[in-house]
């Protein structure tokens, strides 16, 4: 090889690549600067100037004004747009003027809090005032905890710590709670689903305690681009929010390419595995010393890609350094990778979404996404990692073969015009809320008629008194139990009835690698299941229902397992119901509470690349029951006679497959957060029905959204099935179903004539 190719050279070559299905150039954006607001203290101004900041982006100035005016603020900030200043400026300004005030920051991870603290300390040093800023988490030494509790002005922590340590011991934090002026919530969009619903309740508890101590802190939230930053922030904090969306940070010109891997099996319509395509594309850039970041969805993928890339590049004289970056690394490892990236020593990095969060690695020139990351917010967060200095940035999305990716690859205009999804929580999920009412009662007794969130919780307290957890006396419910309720609740795991997953690969050193709720355990951790934990495959040796333990062992096989559940769905209460637009076909939709009773029966072994069924086994587990929320769509039973039972059933199963993949288009969730179950005869209305339910007891607000988006969701399903070129079903449309050809035709008619 003579000399190096430049980005332009490589782009020119890619222009003729037939697999590039779309090429879009996004023009650069100039910075919108404004001078420092007058209200900023001179010392702070000078400190910023010494750090090379001589003006503010408009959104930073807007945030400063809005916060200083006393608003609760939510900011939408893309990657690398200087968001920390948006909250640090008003907080520091306030602390300079009123040193007795306090600020509480919380970040989704310890690592982020640590990063932010370091940055804060540097800025404070530059100001030259003794402002005390600390992290407070599991790593904080016992000896400094008391000092932080009494005199820390800025305390940086995470919601878990707030939940299990700070709030239950609020009497030790009196000076913080009496003087709390700001609560900063960074990475707001990560608080979604079960986790977000828990955190919303933790915030309710926090607000109760502040009220008790007479403070009324302002909230400052920052979020990646999502569809509903204001409503999400309001749902999470229970406050009316001032939204700042206008962003003044500059961006460079971006080339956005969509690459669809070639079809390698015409009959089954199977495409080349996206990892291969990614390796090929990435090594072109890396070989020419162009800094590239590759995103992959799982740790397994990350490790595989790194080893492929290293192999490809091993022949080179100048061995380009390529490394993996994912959660779970020690701070020192992370620092050295981040440093290597900034200095250019590391040319290629393969990452899970760990780098989506605000970790500072500087910016790279090329970003390659292994498959659509599942939601637009992540997509733009990841794409934002490309774009350094004056050079053009390149973003390549390599589509996988699942229906959603293929749909995106085929409908680029839709893709680019897509607004990011909504983030949903359900703070009033009764299972979650009940646990936090307990914690909150532990912290402060509930008064008669007192609200927790929007509603009074007298009934819940009465119930807890009946359960011998609270004791009612003189208009108040007191905690009267020898337990510590926060201990039983993990904000990040689903139900509290959780199973420990124990790795016994090394007999002498069995260790717990994770936990899972009962429902998940029985559908994913049955004996002989292949359980994938953070990209590593495990074989389940034994599931102990009494002890709530699953024993697993590392294996390396080329299949995964999928359980068949005999699922009974009973509608307990219908909250919403409507006829769909079509009076002839009597299609109707509903939303409400359902009881899901599931009996795992058999499991299938499915080959990774091709999704072929290569074996099966029996599952011997008892039935389990869960109450949750569901949305459903029911069809006229007459259709079965028209199309034939088998064909219609195939169409129904196919539609379920499509809905499962299309659902994340409307609500930000993982596929595993929702379940889609077709029933040829639903017990509540005796009609062919597809249920979409939240896979968490009590629901987390996903199916509610699905209900209102059902017409759009069905349109999307129609487009997906229409645009797929296969004849009798493939992974990219309805999957492999009985009577595939007829089923697909039927489904197309069904959806078209809808």
């Amino acid at each position, binding site marked *: 090889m003579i000399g190096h190719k430049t980005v332009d050279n490589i782009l020119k070559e890619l222009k003729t690549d037939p697999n590039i299905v779309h090429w879009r150039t996004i023009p650069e954006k100039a910075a919108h600067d404004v001078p420092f607001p007058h209200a900023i203290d001179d010392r702070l101004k000078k400190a910023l100037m010494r750090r090379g900041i001589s003006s503010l982006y408009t959104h930073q100035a807007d945030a400063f004004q809005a916060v200083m005016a006393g608003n609760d603020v939510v900011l939408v900030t893309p990657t690398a747009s200087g968001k920390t200043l948006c909250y640090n400026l008003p907080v520091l300004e306030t602390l300079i003027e009123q040193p007795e005030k306090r600020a509480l920051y919380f970040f989704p991870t310890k690592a982020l809090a640590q990063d932010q603290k370091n940055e804060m300390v540097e800025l404070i040093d530059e100001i030259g005032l003794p402002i005390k800023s600390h992290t407070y988490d599991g790593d904080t030494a016992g000896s400094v905890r008391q000092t932080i509790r009494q005199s820390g002005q800025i305390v940086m922590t995470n919601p878990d710590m707030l939940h299990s340590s700070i709030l239950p011991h609020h009497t*030790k934090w009196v000076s913080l709670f009496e003087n709390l002026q700001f609560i900063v919530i960074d990475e707001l969009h990560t608080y979604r689903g079960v986790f977000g619903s828990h955190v919303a309740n933790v915030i309710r508890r926090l607000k109760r305690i502040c009220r008790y101590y007479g403070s009324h802190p302002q909230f400052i939230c920052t979020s990646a681009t999502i569809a509903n930053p204001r409503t999400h922030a309001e749902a999470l904090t229970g406050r009316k929010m001032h939204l700042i969306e206008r962003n003044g940070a500059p961006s460079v010109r971006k080339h956005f390419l969509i690459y669809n891997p070639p079809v390698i099996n015409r009959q089954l319509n199977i495409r080349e595995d996206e990892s291969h395509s990614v390796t090929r594309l990435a090594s072109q850039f890396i070989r020419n010393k162009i800094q590239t970041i590759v995103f992959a969805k799982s740790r397994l993928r990350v490790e595989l890609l790194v080893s492929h890339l290293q192999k490809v590049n091993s022949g080179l004289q100048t061995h380009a350094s390529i490394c993996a970056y994912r959660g779970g690394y020690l701070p020192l490892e992370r620092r050295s990778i981040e440093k290597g990236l900034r200095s250019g020593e590391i040319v290629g990095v393969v990452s899970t979404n760990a780098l989506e969060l605000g970790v500072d690695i500087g910016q790279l020139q090329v970003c390659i996404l292994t498959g659509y990351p599942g939601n637009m917010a992540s997509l733009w967060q990841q794409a934002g990692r490309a774009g350094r200095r004056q050079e053009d940035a390149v973003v390549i999305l390599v589509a996988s073969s699942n229906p959603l990716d293929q749909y995106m690859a085929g409908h680029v205009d839709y893709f680019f015009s897509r607004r990011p999804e909504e983030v949903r929580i359900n703070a009033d999920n009764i*299972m979650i809320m009940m646990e936090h009412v307990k914690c909150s009662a532990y912290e402060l*007794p509930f008064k008669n008629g007192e609200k927790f969130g929007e*509603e009074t919780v007298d009934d819940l307290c009465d119930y807890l008194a009946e359960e*011998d957890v609270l*004791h009612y006396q003189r208009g108040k419910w007191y905690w009267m*139990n020898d*337990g*510590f309720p926060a201990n039983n609740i993990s904000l990040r795991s689903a139900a509290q009835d959780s199973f420990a997953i124990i790795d016994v690969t090394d007999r002498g050193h069995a260790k717990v690698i994770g936990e899972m709720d009962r429902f998940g355990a029985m559908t994913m951790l049955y004996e002989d299941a292949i359980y994938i934990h953070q990209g590593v495959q495990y074989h389940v040796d034994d599931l102990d229902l009494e002890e709530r333990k699953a024993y697993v062992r590392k294996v390396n096989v080329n299949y995964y397992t999928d359980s068949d559940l005999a699922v009974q769905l009973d509608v307990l209460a219908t909250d919403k119901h409507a006829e769909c637009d079509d009076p002839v076909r009597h299609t109707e939709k509903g939303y409400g*509470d359902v009881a899901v009773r599931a009996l795992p029966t058999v499991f299938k072994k499915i080959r990774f690349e091709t999704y072929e069924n290569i074996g099966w086994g029996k599952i011997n587990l008892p039935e389990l029951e869960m109450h949750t929320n569901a949305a459903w769509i029911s069809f006229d039973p007459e259709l079965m006679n028209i199309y034939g039972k088998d064909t219609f059933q195939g169409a129904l199963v196919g539609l379920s497959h499509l809905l499962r993949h299309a659902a994340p288009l409307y609500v930000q969730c993982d596929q595993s957060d929702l379940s889609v179950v077709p029933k040829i005869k639903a017990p509540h209305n005796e009609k062919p029905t597809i249920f979409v339910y939240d896979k968490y007891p009590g629901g987390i607000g996903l199916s509610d959204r699905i209900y209102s988006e059902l017409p759009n969701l069905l349109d999307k399903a129609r487009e997906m099935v229409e645009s797929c070129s296969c004849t009798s079903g493939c992974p990219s449309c309805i999957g492999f179903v009985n009577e595939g050809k007829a089923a697909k035709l039927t489904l197309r008619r069904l959806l078209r004539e809808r």
Partner: protein
Amino acid sequence: MSLTKKLQLYRKQLHEQNQLTRPEVSQSTASFEMSESRQNEAIAAAAQLLNAKMNWLDDQYVLVYSEIIPIQKKVGPYTLAELDPAVSAWQSFSPRHPLSACGLQTEELLFFDTETTGLGSGAGQMIFLIGLAHWTRQGVVLNQYFLPGPGHEAAFYHKFLNDTKSLKNLVTFNGKAFDWPRVKTRHQFVRNQVPRLPAFGHFDLLHASRRLWKNRLEAVRLQTIESDILSMERTHDVPGKMAPFLYFRFLKHPDAGLVKGIMEHNRDDVLTLISLYIHLSNKIMGRIGPDLEEKFEIARWNDQIGETDRAQRQWEALVHQPSSFRGRAKLRLAQLYKKQGAYSASLNLLQSAIRDPDVDVGSIYIEAAKLLEHQFKDYRRAQYYTKEALNYLYQGDHRLTEGFQSKEADYLKRLQRLNGRIGEHDRIKRNITRASAKTP
């Protein structure tokens, strides 16, 4: 859907969720609402049976039980009267000792113990019983404050704090880490209605007991000390861990029988504190003969609090008679000598300790090596002892002991440094020899 309706729908699942986090002790499930006035009547009746007074603050009240216990009463090996001579003895002993009552009247010591609704330290655990005793010539005055319900905490702390103006001389068993933080936590909730918390100072008998007896007791708990150290026996005692559940039941059905046992338990604990304080004081001041291990630990304690002279005398006494603590005493004494600059005496002691069976010979060798290297500049002998320390470390199953790796690294580093010094030393010597050889 309203929360109430949700609650109906999810009752069964919520109950199951609760069951998962429930304590194992079952409680009465039949509950009925009692009106405020009926509740008060029932508590008044219970108070009568408990011989307690109801003490009102506005609409709240606290039950106070008072008793004067005759001074001749025997608690374990001592009568309560013996507290006075023990306190007197402190007057002429070291004021620096953590248990010292020097400058105090016997009457000023406050023996203090609480019962709580749980062992946790969070905001939600309450103290429902405080037992407090002080000595007088007429007898030991015991006051117990019992919280009749969570809504009465203001009255509870109000009475307790008004009765006890000073809390500077509390005698507790783990009070610093357990009882007092809980008092502080709960006081937060009623701080606007009750007196401020006075400054807290105290004698922690857990700490002292741990120092003296941690090796001989399975767990350093008050009950174990009673049986194994003070040879006491409690009959019909309500175990402390049952207290919360009995109390919870009392709240629903105020029946004196449920809490009578807890109050007696608390009374016994407070009296044991008096006996234990006398016992510890006597041991520390040598008023009764401490055994060898106690002597060793008392000397170590004195050393740590800066009572060096006393410690030195105690080490020397231990060194002069053969015992299973002799080697360890030698090591300690050698360290003390070293601090005083008596290096030869220190080295001699260390060398003689090598043959004692009760020491970690490795650390003796290292101590000797340190002295030789830094004080005597005798690198070769320092090197020899360091090698011996390493040999010892590699013997038997020392490899498996905790701290092996850091010790090994430490020893090797020392050895390397010594090797270097010897090399350097030799080189200089050679140069000198060569230089002197050249001169005719």
